[in-house]
């Protein structure tokens, strides 16, 4: 009896937001205009109920001394040797995170009711909020890595769409696309990890943590079955790290985070300041049992986290707009959390994650009041606010100072590197291959002289080869622009 109740509660944490989304999607599909209040109430109610379920479940588990509740929604498919289960798990890792997600999303739902009042995209915002919430809850509660992937994708897609919320302007769309591309590039990691985990262990569902499979000591929450060889652990851990780097905006992929501040302030607050970036460390926490066998992965995680923290704190100090400043502050803390995860301080990391999400959301929500607050702060201190960063003057020689400042102002040059050397390099490689192709074509079909390369765009492309040339270049261009700064 109590098992059934618990399983129902567990399911409803994901179910309520999903239902809210489905409900609105149906209405939107039918083209019916709903009054604002009905839309927001549905979403807020869904998150409220999801949070209540999560809290109730946590209380029941605490009361009963249970450490883990699972519910299987069924099997997606099975092929004799391996099966893909749709499994949800509630334990002391997933439930706090689920409560946090539902709480923040619900609060943002209430907040946006006033904030987005009379905004044409009101319904769209709430639909995306509900779907995002459902996606994150899925990641939080998933007991199978495939299911994590589903939630991961939902969260990623909705994030990108929310960045591009004001799609009548060009920049938000560009930046949404940029975030989406980063996510996609990194999602490959998660997919690879799923495949390799299946290959190595035959299963991608969680097992009881207390079984102690490969995890030293009491990890306290459900973990995946650890691969037996260090090599396998390394091969799974590294893609997992890659996957989480994109979502968590870690070096060198973090350029999308400040750009994500294009949407309405409440969505920036909850997604890019708090929940969305937390998914990276969360994934690593959940899969700790898998990669903890490979010290190299541990070192890599700590290195990425530490590098990001140092980079972001440097860069954040030169930012002159409040949202970028807060974005880099988030990046800094997420870097620290990642390092904590790598060092095995898992409870500290979880606490840090939740505390950070609350703090940062509150700060971003307050960001439009900055001028007001600055004035009051001046009044409260009774003098002009003291300049910051003075110790830089004292400690660092002048030449290095300017160099460091330029590094910060240019955001570590990562964007330029990515644009001009990685993506641009790829584009140039394609172009070179294409001109080789050209030469081949000339060799094979004598009597026709290929067009000079640079003229390809001004001359009408007569042959399919030339058409491909032009098209390839066009593609290089678009990607280049998508990656561009600002």
């Amino acid at each position, binding site marked *: 009896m109590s098992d059934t109740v618990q399983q129902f509660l567990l399911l409803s944490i994901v179910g309520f937001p999903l239902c809210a989304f489905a409900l609105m999607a149906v209405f939107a599909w039918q083209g019916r205009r709903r009054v604002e209040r009905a839309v927001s109430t549905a979403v807020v109610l869904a998150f409220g109920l999801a949070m209540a379920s999560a809290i109730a479940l946590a209380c029941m588990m605490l009361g009963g001394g249970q450490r883990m509740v699972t519910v299987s929604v069924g099997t997606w498919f099975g092929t004799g040797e391996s099966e893909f289960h749709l499994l949800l798990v509630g334990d002391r890792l997933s439930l706090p995170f689920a409560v946090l997600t539902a709480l923040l999303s619900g609060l943002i739902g209430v907040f946006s009711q006033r904030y987005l009042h009379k905004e044409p995209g009101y319904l769209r915002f709430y639909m995306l909020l509900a779907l995002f919430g459902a996606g994150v809850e899925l990641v939080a509660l998933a007991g199978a890595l495939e299911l994590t992937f589903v939630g991961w994708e939902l969260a990623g897609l909705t994030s990108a769409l929310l960045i591009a919320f*004001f799609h009548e302007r060009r920049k938000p769309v560009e930046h949404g696309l940029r975030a989406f591309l980063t996510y996609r590039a990194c999602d490959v990691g998660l997919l690879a990890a799923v495949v390799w985990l299946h290959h190595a262990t035959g299963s991608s569902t969680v097992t009881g943590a207390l079984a102690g499979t490969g995890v030293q000591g009491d990890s306290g929450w459900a973990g995946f079955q650890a691969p037996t060889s260090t090599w396998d652990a390394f091969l799974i851990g590294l893609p997992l790290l890659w996957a989480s780097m994109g979502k968590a905006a870690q070096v060198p992929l973090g350029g999308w985070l400040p750009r994500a501040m*294009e949407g309405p302030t409440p969505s920036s607050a909850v997604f890019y300041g708090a929940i969305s970036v937390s998914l990276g460390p969360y994934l690593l926490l959940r899969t700790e049992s898998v990669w903890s066998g490979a010290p190299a992965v541990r070192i890599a995680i700590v290195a990425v986290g530490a590098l990001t923290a140092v980079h972001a704190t440097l860069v954040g100090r030169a930012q*002159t707009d409040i949202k970028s400043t807060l974005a880099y502050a988030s990046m800094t803390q997420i870097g620290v959390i990642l390092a904590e995860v790598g060092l095995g301080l898992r409870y500290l990391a979880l606490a840090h994650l939740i505390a950070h999400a609350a703090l940062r959301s509150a700060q971003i929500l307050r960001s439009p009041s900055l*001028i007001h607050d600055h004035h009051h702060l001046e009044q409260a201190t009774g003098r002009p606010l003291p300049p910051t960063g003075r110790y830089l003057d004292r400690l660092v020689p002048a030449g290095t100072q300017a160099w460091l400042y330029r590094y910060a102002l240019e955001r570590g040059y990562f964007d330029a590197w990515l644009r001009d050397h990685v993506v641009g390099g790829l584009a140039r490689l394609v172009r070179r291959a294409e001109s080789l192709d050209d030469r081949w074509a000339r060799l094979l079909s004598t009597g026709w002289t290929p067009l000079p390369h640079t003229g390809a765009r001004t001359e009408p492309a007569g042959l399919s080869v030339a058409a491909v040339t032009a098209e390839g270049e066009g593609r290089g261009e678009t990607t280049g622009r998508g990656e561009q700064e600002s």
Partner: protein
Amino acid sequence: MSHLDTAAGPAVEDGSAGIADLVERAAKLLPDQAPLQTFVHHNTLHAFEHLPFDEAVVSAARVFGTEPFQSEAAFQGFVDSGRIRPGDIEAVVEAEVSSETPLVPGGPTPGRFHAIRLRHLFEVPRGAALSWLLLETDQRTRFTERLDAQRRVELLAQARRDWTGSAVPEPGARALQAQLLDTLWNRLEKAAPHLRGTGAPSPRRRDQILATTGTDTDELVHPLLIRLSAAFLDQGIAYWPMPERGQGFLHAFRRLYGQPGGPPDRFLRGLDTELRRQETEAWTAERTVAWALRELAVPEPEWGAAIEATLLSLRGWAGMMRQFEHRPDRAPVEAHAARLVDYLAVQLVLDAYAARYAMVGYLGPHATVADLDRLPGPSGEPPARPVLELVYEAFVLAQVMPVDMAVFAEAGHATAWLEAVASCDETERRRLLHLAYERRHRVGVLDALSAHQQIVGGATQVTPPARMQAVFCIDEREESLRRHLEEHFPQAETYGYAGFFGVAMTYRGIDEIRARPLCPVVVTPQHLVVEEPAATRAGRHAVPRRGRGGLSRGFTVGSRTLARGSVITLGLGFAHVVTLVGRCLFPRLFHRWSQRLDHGTGAAPVTRLALERAATATEEHGDGLLRGYSVPEMVGVVSAALRTTGLGRRFSPVVLIVGHGSSSLNNPHESAHDCGATGGGRGGPNARAFAAMANHAGVREGLRDLGTDIPKDTWFVGAYHNTCDDSMTYYDEDLIPERFLSSVEEAKRVMAEACVLAAHERCRRFESAPLDLPLDAALAHVESHTVDLGQPRPEYGHATNAACIVGRRSRTRGLFLDRRAFLVSYDPEGDASGDLLTNLLLAAGPVCAGINLEYYFSYVDPAGYGCGTKLPHNIVGLLGVMDGHASDLRTGLPWQMVEIHEPVRLLLVVEAEPERLTAILDAHAGLNRLVANGWIQLVAWSPVSDAMHVFTRGRFLPYTPEDAVFPMVNRSAQFYAGNRGHLGFAHAMAAFETVLPEGTSPETIFPGTVPSETAELSEAIPSTRVSPEAVPSGTAGNEPASPMAHVQEVP
């Protein structure tokens, strides 16, 4: 970059001589908006004021790529809803379009043509859409759907007459239509002008490169330029300031980007060496500009245009650089050595590199920017083709208008028709519709004034003797408060006077760390007034608050760093769950608690203004400011106010001087809601200073010498009205002599009650408030708008402002003006020479017009002139807002502030004879420019008769009222109840002695309009006014008999 080096060797004359002038000329077009802390409304198109309004908006639209008027679709909506009436269109066309001979024989005259055209607003599809329409639909063979039956018969008759096919069998209607229309189309197409090219090319290289290569160099340059500008101007957001910014923008840029190992961006290759070279050779900014323009191969005659286009490409930032250059005193924290030419030099250098990079990418490694001129255009010259859009429009109109199709057989007539169609193009139609739209508003106001005059002039309306007087700012937001005060307490008299009350001072409050001017922007203050703790309890609050301030600062800064951030996050992060829950769910309660935690519950310290300066003391303190006012100066200030407003004629026991301001969270544009007359500051201190002056014994003596006797039993009290939450603060209450206490208490009480009523009226505009909001919930509602982080509409500010009435309050008392009119008190009887009026108009005219026009433009083009929706705004540098993380600095007003505005030009009604106004205009060129060029609509309202004269094309023409409908109600609430939109005008009887007997329904003296149903509100606000006997007399502690007494319980 050897190429760049050779271009400007030391031998080349640097050509920088004329650059400064060119920059200066271009700078006039930049937005003139100060940092957001000192937001002052101004005419967005200040640079175009020398042109007539309609010419100016059109040419500005060309320069900035903006909209001149509201869209045609919006006007169509107004025509449909009756906001614009057919009569308005007729009247406007008659005045604007000369109408003599018909366009074509038997056809309409130009005037008729315009009038019909404006009734048929249809969208003319362009390009591919038009091709589709012509090729795939039966548009060319079938009459348009806009035909009425009569015209249809007429056309068919013409078709039958001109039928050329075989007569047997009788041709069907379809065939007739097809032939007639086909002939028409062919004739028009043959006569249509041919178009080649798309006009003059842009002088800017970036535009040419974009058109030719498809690469937008601004995509490379702007992000960098935005970052640099923001870093340079930053007022304290960044933890690290930009190094060496004290020596100017160009210098700082050279130092940062001149270091070796520069950014890896490919387009910046070679920049570091070039910058080092320029720095070594100590190039001035002008020389750098000239060099870059040569690099960009811009021909020298086009430099001016290129500079203008370059600066306008990121005009928000360029404008802010200029603001810092010209008005360093307005910098919120610290004015850096900004120069616009430095900024231009940096932009052009980057432009030059980006342009070369784009050309190299397009043509190969040896390309230069000059090669662009040798390339063919984007896709060669487009072949000349007839302007099909025009033909289509003429084709449809020929069907609609009363014209015989046969006349188009003659090519000259077809051409004349096409010309007529082209002359009534979209811009012209919008202009005429705008005039019709304004006309309806003007007629509404003037008719209401004259109808109201008929009532007030009658003997039935008597104003009771004043028991209190209150002087407010002229701000149209105070209109409702004044009206409610008079309706609720008819023994109150109100006056409107510019909200700095003549006290043009620089002021430093006890909490403030720097002094700021509190006077109109055009005035340079000469006096410094400081608020000081009163001797008794000096500095009691100073110490603990400071400690808390430091702590709060440490937390804010620390939470963004690495180590401190981790500790703070872990330590205090969970506490923020409480903050979040509170802010999101209970914004008002939570704000109250946090205020209490922050400031404690103790009363504010008792303070005094250091106002008086000994007459002989002229000591300078190095800042050119006098410390306080001498008695003669005070006499001057007070006397001017009393004479201008007419307050000096009689005094009540209590005179309130009410300044105003606004405070709100989640609002970067907070200061835009403050008092315009104090230069975007809060007018409380001015009111306080004025009251103190008027109470000063020496000043009263001085006034007596000038003929104004303030009696002993009159006391002035300064007050401050927060227009956002409708709260009142009173100053220096401890100085009020005992004998006035009861009168002051009464004044405060009725004022508080009027605030509730005014708040309730404001709530009707907020969709968040139900239309049947109970009266006692109104204050709570407006207060929650003030403190809610999630509320992008703290108040609607000046939105809906449309008129300004300069004259005696007795002529507007009891008139419901819907918070849309600035009310300036002016007593024509005390102004024989006209000097007072001149001063009033010189101050109020430009200020009100500035407010009005800023709202006009921000509404008409929210993205081009305004700063768009608030939702993605991001505060940068404590100066302004950007959209998202790196955009141009957005100037103008956000959409949430203007969304309910009606974009009409200010209707300035002045109680004076036309001759006097003409004389004033002739003597003051600045004012004349505004009026003659039509930036303001001016009306002379005779002080003796009720005649009105409207200023039209250089002279005053008499006005005859046309609308004979004027609603009459007991109280304002009856009129506005149940409505959100703009209302007309009405007479509220409660402001006078005579009222309708209890129980009778509101009437109209002119039949035709009965105010909308008065709902529950008329019950909440008793339709009977407080009878004089019920008002507590003189003694304190009386039972408050007002029916509104319960509002006092509302905290």
